[in-house]
């Protein structure tokens, strides 16, 4: 197929989140079955902590995303993906490949905008799981995300709330007004605690498990930084940079994933969009207003 002979594709016609799907397909020769495509994209976006990915929920065969199913069809109709139907032992199944037009679009329009760190994080995950059979991948996803064990997820959420409290208490002792790193760490922890408290009432184990996993990662990273900072007096931001092995997501990226996930799943708005009135009493809000209004502006330019 000659890409130039086709209608011009723009960012508006291709959904933004579809870059994850195109990334996956551009790194494998083919994906056999829709089940495997669904699970592969799920693993890639959630293990690599890629913000703005697909919303998944628990379906008959584990995590499933309607958005991904729709995007796949859209991209097939746009000629970016090819779908071939093959006959299996019992049922027909689909084989998905990126087309030449899809490769050209990916290389010209997606790759230049894709942060190299995201790309580096996604690649090994695609490599790893693309070797699995559809059945093995589905099994792995079931086990890894504890989809059949909602009670276990709930008890892990409660345990994590305690762990976050411990890490938070440490960072509270390290806090001083001039330190931006500790300011943000404490805000991230408190937001995650709020999100976990809300998620416990959600029924879908897929949604719960993804948030739990991201908050565990945040807690683990903040705990590792705390361990170093408790032994020697060092800037937490610098310790974070030293501990974070590229292309690992930084604390800020993990938190970005958490708040993006919470917003898209309607658990909580992003931290920066939270209503101040929800976070403080009326008296506190009035005091804050007054503090900003009466800040002594007479001594600086």
């Amino acid at each position, binding site marked *: 197929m000659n890409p130039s002979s086709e209608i011009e594709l723009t960012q508006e016609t291709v959904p933004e989140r579809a870059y994850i799907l195109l990334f996956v397909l551009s790194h494998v020769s083919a994906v056999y079955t829709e089940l495997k495509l669904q699970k592969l994209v799920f693993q890639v976006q959630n293990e690599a902590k890629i913000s703005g990915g697909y919303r998944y929920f628990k379906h008959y065969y584990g995590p499933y995303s309607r958005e991904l199913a729709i995007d796949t069809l859209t991209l097939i109709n746009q000629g970016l993906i090819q779908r071939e139907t093959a006959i299996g032992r019992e049922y027909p199944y689909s084989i998905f490949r990126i087309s030449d037009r899809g490769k050209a679009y990916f290389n010209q329009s997606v790759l230049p905008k894709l942060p190299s760190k995201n790309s580096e994080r996604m690649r090994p995950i695609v490599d790893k799981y693309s070797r699995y059979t559809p059945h093995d991948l589905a099994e792995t996803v079931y086990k890894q995300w504890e989809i059949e064990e909602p009670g276990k997820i709930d008890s892990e959420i409660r345990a994590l709330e305690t762990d976050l409290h411990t890490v938070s208490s440490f960072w509270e002792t390290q806090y001083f007004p001039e330190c931006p790193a500790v300011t943000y760490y*404490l805000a991230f922890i408190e937001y995650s605690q709020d999100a976990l408290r809300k998620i416990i009432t959600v029924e879908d184990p897929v949604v719960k498990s993804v948030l739990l996993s991201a908050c565990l990662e945040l807690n683990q990273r903040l705990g590792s930084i705390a361990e170093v900072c408790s032994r020697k007096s060092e800037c937490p931001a610098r310790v974070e940079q030293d501990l974070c092995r590229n292309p690992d997501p930084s604390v800020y990226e993990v938190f970005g994933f958490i708040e993006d996930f919470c917003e898209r799943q309607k658990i909580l708005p992003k931290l920066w969009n939270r209503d101040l009135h929800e*976070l*403080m*009493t009326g008296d*506190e809000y009035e*005091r*804050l207003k007054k503090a900003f*209004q009466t800040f002594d502006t007479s*001594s600086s330019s």
Partner: protein
Amino acid sequence: MEYALRLDSDIHALYNENVSQFIGFVRSKGAKIVICKTVETEAREQLTGAINRMVDQAAPRRARQIRGIAQKKCWGRLADLLTNATVLLLNNNVQPVKRFYESLLQDEGTRSRLEALRDRRRSRGNKRTGLMPEESDMKILSETPAVPRDGNILFLVSNDGHFCEFGQEIERAFGVKLLPVHDLSQFMIKHEQVE
């Protein structure tokens, strides 16, 4: 830094409204905003602490997310301001500024104005303030005349009493026109009418 200290549409000082409008006004007139490196550095070094102290004062127990939100919003505003301005590292010599303020202390009239300024600041809780401006403020004033003018008029926009209350004296001594923040609205109206 003060321009950055606006947390919400509901929580702000009038200062910010005036400066926001002024930035748009300056851009529409094709004029330039210059920020001395000293001012930029001071803002970057002090903003985090200023925000956190204000939030802690208002909501000491439940302020973790609020601190984060406030930081993000205020730093965003500082970044906006800096993208609309040229930051210049300027040569300076603080000695003429020191001599200038010492001369103000010698004169009975200007000395009493300096004393009144000190008393006002102390009444607002700033116990460290003296009759002379802080070193960093003197540095800022010493840098201002070095801003390249290309034949244009140079205004120093400030809210600092040590500058604003001695506008005429500063203009005579350094050739810089003082433009207090509280006069920005009038300044904009006047210049719109002239055109």
